[in-house]
């Protein structure tokens, strides 16, 4: 009896492990910043490099921190979703223009629309390192106290907005 059961058992165990493996997303590394204060920065604004933005300026509001670049192919896919989302005015959207040429970045926003309330520049990628950015696009949700609440790696889809971002933002907006 055992002779026949054993291979079946081994098969079931392997199937479970392989099945779990299929559903794992090795590209999505859990961010160590969840429920931690947003990493600080003081960065020049894209449209006006004289002015700087720091996370402290955004205290008291819920904000989305979206890492983008004009060279990033999947950002293009995400851009339309962000444009539509921005029209709802549900949240402040801050763009981090990551390792990009400012002229190319401005061109991109002019051509495709600008969903960002403000974009800041990170030409040498240091803010990116501080935020643990490893793939563009990435999107963080930061609450009113400046605590990172969520991180999304890869392009945000319209479904993600409906299923994840909107409920979370509504909840955070209701908080103090």
């Amino acid at each position, binding site marked *: 009896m055992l002779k026949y059961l054993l291979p079946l058992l081994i098969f079931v165990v392997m199937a479970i492990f392989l099945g779990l493996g299929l559903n794992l997303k090795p590209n999505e*590394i859990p961010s*160590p910043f969840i429920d931690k204060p947003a990493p600080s920065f003081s960065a020049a604004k894209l449209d006006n490099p004289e002015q700087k933005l720091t996370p402290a300026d955004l205290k008291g509001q819920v904000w989305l921190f979206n890492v983008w670049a004009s060279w990033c192919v999947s950002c293009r896919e995400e851009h339309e979703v962000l444009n539509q989302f921005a029209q709802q005015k549900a949240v402040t959207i801050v763009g981090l223009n990551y390792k990009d040429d400012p002229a190319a970045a401005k061109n991109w926003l002019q051509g495709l629309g600008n969903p960002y309330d403000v974009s800041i520049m990170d030409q040498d990628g240091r803010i*990116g390192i501080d*935020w*643990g950015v*490893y793939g563009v696009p990435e999107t963080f949700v930061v609450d009113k106290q400046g605590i990172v609440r969520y991180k999304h790696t890869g392009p945000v889809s319209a479904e993600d907005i409906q299923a994840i971002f909107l409920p979370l933002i509504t909840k955070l907006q209701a908080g103090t």
Partner: protein
Amino acid sequence: MKYVSIIVLLMLSYWAVAVDTQQLATPEQQAIYESLTSELRCLVCQNQTIADSNAELAADLRRQVAEMLEQGKSKQDVINFMTERYGDFVLYKPPFKAKTSLLWLGPGLFLLFGVIAVLLVVRRKKMSSAGAIISSEKQKKISKLLEEGDGS
């Protein structure tokens, strides 16, 4: 043969394509730099270390490591800096924690299962061969038959 060796040598030249490495002030720092960059994972191309990778992020992280060492930071400082930002995943040698215990103990557990399985099989074999002892009467009959067989 000549061609084969040429091809093999050309394949080996892959190793000579060095990724831009930083030159640090002292040999000690250089040694720490080299050991660090070969212990940190490039997060874009996950199966390469930042020393091996040509990805831009890897170059930025190498620059970061070099700068921190030049500022007099220790190896542990750099490792802390990286794990604060990217989590334990950035380390090729993750620390032993509850979350990584399966990773560290897994191979040992598999070895243990293997040893137990082998012991069980060996024991079963022994038991079944013990059961195969046949009565001396039958044994005699068998040898007689065998002898007869030889004769023909």
